[in-house]
């Protein structure tokens, strides 16, 4: 299994519903990734705001992304390829 640390900003399309945010697609390095499933979500406090973290599935690959309320920015943290 390969785990690659990325740490780059991404653009995310998400739906806000029922008190939670669900990412649907994201764009990274010019390519669009469609989220087939949200594996898990967790919240962390960061830099005076909070960070919403997601583990999302795109095909066979798993991506860790997060939204920072302080930066108002989504980022791609890790890519895991089995």
């Amino acid at each position, binding site marked *: 299994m390969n785990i690659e640390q990325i740490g780059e900003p991404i653009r995310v399309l998400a739906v806000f519903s029922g008190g939670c945010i669900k990412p649907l697609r994201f764009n990274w390095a010019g390519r669009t990734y469609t989220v087939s*499933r949200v594996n898990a979500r967790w*919240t962390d406090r960061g*830099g005076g705001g909070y960070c919403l973290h997601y583990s999302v599935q795109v095909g066979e690959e*798993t991506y860790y992304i997060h939204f920072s309320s302080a930066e108002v920015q989504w980022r791609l943290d890790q890519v895991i390829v089995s």
Partner: protein
Amino acid sequence: MSKHLDKLILHVDVDAFFASVEQLLIPALRNRPVIVGSGCIASCSYEARAFGLHAGMSLREARRFCPSAVVLDGQYPIYRCFAEHVWQVCRRYTRGLETYLDEACGDATGMEGIHGDPLTLGRKLQREVREQVGLPVSVGLASNRMMAKFASGWAKPGGVAWIRPGQEEGFLAPLPIEKLPGVGGKTAQRLRDLNVKTIGDLRPLPRDLLGCMFGRRGELLYERCRGGVEDGESGLALRAQRPSHSDDRAPRKPAAGDAGAPKTISRETTFHQPQCDPAKIRAMLAYLTERAMRTLRQKALLARTVRLSIRYDDRKEDSAERSLDHPTAADDEIFAAVSNLLDQLYRRRVALRHVGILLSRFSPAAAQAALFEPPQGTFRPGLYEAIDTIRDRWGHAAVVKGQSIDLLGELKQNDYGFVLRTPSLTR
């Protein structure tokens, strides 16, 4: 109308915590043997346990038993977030929840009116954790903390168990004597020399005899082997009352329903690499001291005694403690004692793998002053209050002081502070 129950204590334990989180986050790991750890196993999935793997086993040995296991270093800040989410759910079922990394204990007395009988309550909690967090937990219920922990251990994995009042002795009797809290290796050997192999075998021994053999601890063993022990004497105070890392963010005043002052507060960690540089060892101890002392001040306590524990790279361990002339809430005073203890203990030419400090002998910070006021030492209440306020607002990493500065550049930081390899892992 619900039947009124005596005290009902609930113990929750996340099954294979670190490995379960990883399997939740990465679907490709599900139903596969997964190990989390570096050097030795910190946590492994039940699929890995089927190969004989267990926490504490070296990775080298683990790979021999299970070559197909996936080994991960661990992402402790993430595990902490999941633990907090589990405890949020648990707080809807209990009062005064005390947490320690992957387990928690709370008072569910009277909750049967809301959630049903104890087994129903336990299953509801389990289901809610699974639905909201995605993690499997085992739940134990009993009339005191020790028995509730036994119950959750018996129910693992993914089960719920209730040891009804009056059933404690029958439950404990067949268990090996080593399972009783307070019975370590040496005590077990002494008892086995008396042909005491199970907890049931211990019961016929008179209280006086156990007291002569083991002092106050012997009297506690007398109570514990019968299952009827006050929670302050359960032997779990050392772990269950030790606050989790997340308690660093707790408000200064104790939350409503908290069970009271802990008996000990500790912080310990394993170095990323075996460490023999005295400056780096002291820097880590300074940081651990800060973390523990911050928790101490949050609970409005003073500490009088500090214990330093070290483990060498060849697994040999040593520890020593020192009591101060007066109780204190000052980082510097405790760290001075820690530093002296390090000079006293660290004499071998072998690198250190693990260090920890433990504070004890607490008194309330607002206690009446002695007639002859001891010197204030280096305690500057205004300074520490300001630092703690900044950290409460911006995270522990907002202020790095003293010898902890030597960790800058060596370790990554997040808002909780330095990212340690194994934060507060104590077994």
